[in-house]
């Protein structure tokens, strides 16, 4: 199974559902080291993403992701808005006008998203941000795609790697965002942005399985 318009839309739909189901958990993580609104912000942004997809009726998977990104940027309200919004838009643009992306193309789109997030937020690996989940996820996804694996197999590997990356944020000291003001007090908690990123990549694995 490749990544087409239906699959892309199903991904955003599943992402919205899983983020809403985990809204309290994400907000709890953010209450520990952030400003306690990550769950609500992500739920609002992904709902806006779905509304924008329904309104634009995109014809390609790339256009689905661009429409999702625009909805997220417009309505999220916190730092996750421009970061996720720009990531989805860049991923969508990287897919170009293909109607049926293969695993290598989806891997390139995810890499474009990672690059966009790093450029916009200035975070590197080890800063205790979503980059710590997305970086290993993109590498794992591309490794499977490079071996000729399906989108489903690559997405499975990507989601597993994102969850491992999330777990690895626990001992880190935050160097970005509100958590960075806490210094050593930020150690010992999962990063909320890495947590939402892992949920969204697990949603991709589930809709492509």
């Amino acid at each position, binding site marked *: 199974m490749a990544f087409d318009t239906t699959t892309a839309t199903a991904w955003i739909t599943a992402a919205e559902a899983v983020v809403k189901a985990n809204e309290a958990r994400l907000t709890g993580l953010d209450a520990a080291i952030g400003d306690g*609104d990550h769950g609500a*912000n992500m739920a609002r942004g992904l709902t806006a993403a779905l509304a924008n997809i329904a309104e634009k009726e995109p014809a390609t998977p790339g256009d689905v992701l661009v429409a999702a990104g625009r909805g997220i*940027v*417009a*309505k*999220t*309200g*916190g*730092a*996750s*808005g*421009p*970061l996720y*919004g*720009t990531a989805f838009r860049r991923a969508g643009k990287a897919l170009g006008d293909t109607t049926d992306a293969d695993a290598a193309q989806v891997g390139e789109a995810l890499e474009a998203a990672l690059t966009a997030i790093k450029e*916009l*937020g200035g975070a590197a690996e080890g800063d205790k941000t979503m980059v710590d989940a997305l970086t290993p996820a993109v590498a794992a996804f591309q490794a499977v795609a490079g071996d000729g694996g399906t989108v489903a197999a690559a997405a499975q590997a990507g989601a597993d790697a994102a969850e491992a990356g999330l777990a690895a944020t626990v001992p880190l000291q935050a160097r970005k*965002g*509100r958590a960075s003001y806490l210094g050593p007090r930020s150690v010992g908690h999962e990063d909320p942005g890495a947590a939402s990123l892992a949920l969204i990549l697990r949603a991709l694995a589930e809709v492509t399985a």
Partner: protein
Amino acid sequence: MTVGIVLVSHSPAVASSVAELAAELAGPSVAIRAAGGTDDGRFGTSIELISAAVRSADSGDGVCVLMDMGSSVLTSKTLLEDLEDEDDAPVVRLADAPFAEGAVAAAVLASTGQDLDAVVTSAEHAWSMRKL
């Protein structure tokens, strides 16, 4: 015509109060607009509010945007990227400056008719104006 100023804060009250302070010191010739909070009045930032403020502040000489922190910076950077895709978009520069002090410095210089580069530089020089 003068350079316009836009103040982006997570807080609607902070953005509007700093705008009021800067306007008081700069006088009526400078268009100073506040873009604080989300589009429904919560704490946060809104690309739509920032975009509307930029367009309202622009008289053709460009707009200097000052941000408080975090998503104010990221959302303003995202707006700059969007404007690059538009024809006839306002010329916008983000000032890397302390919020209140930078706003006053930018607004006062804008009131003298200086160009966008000079206004942004003035805001950024506010970092080095010691208080003690």
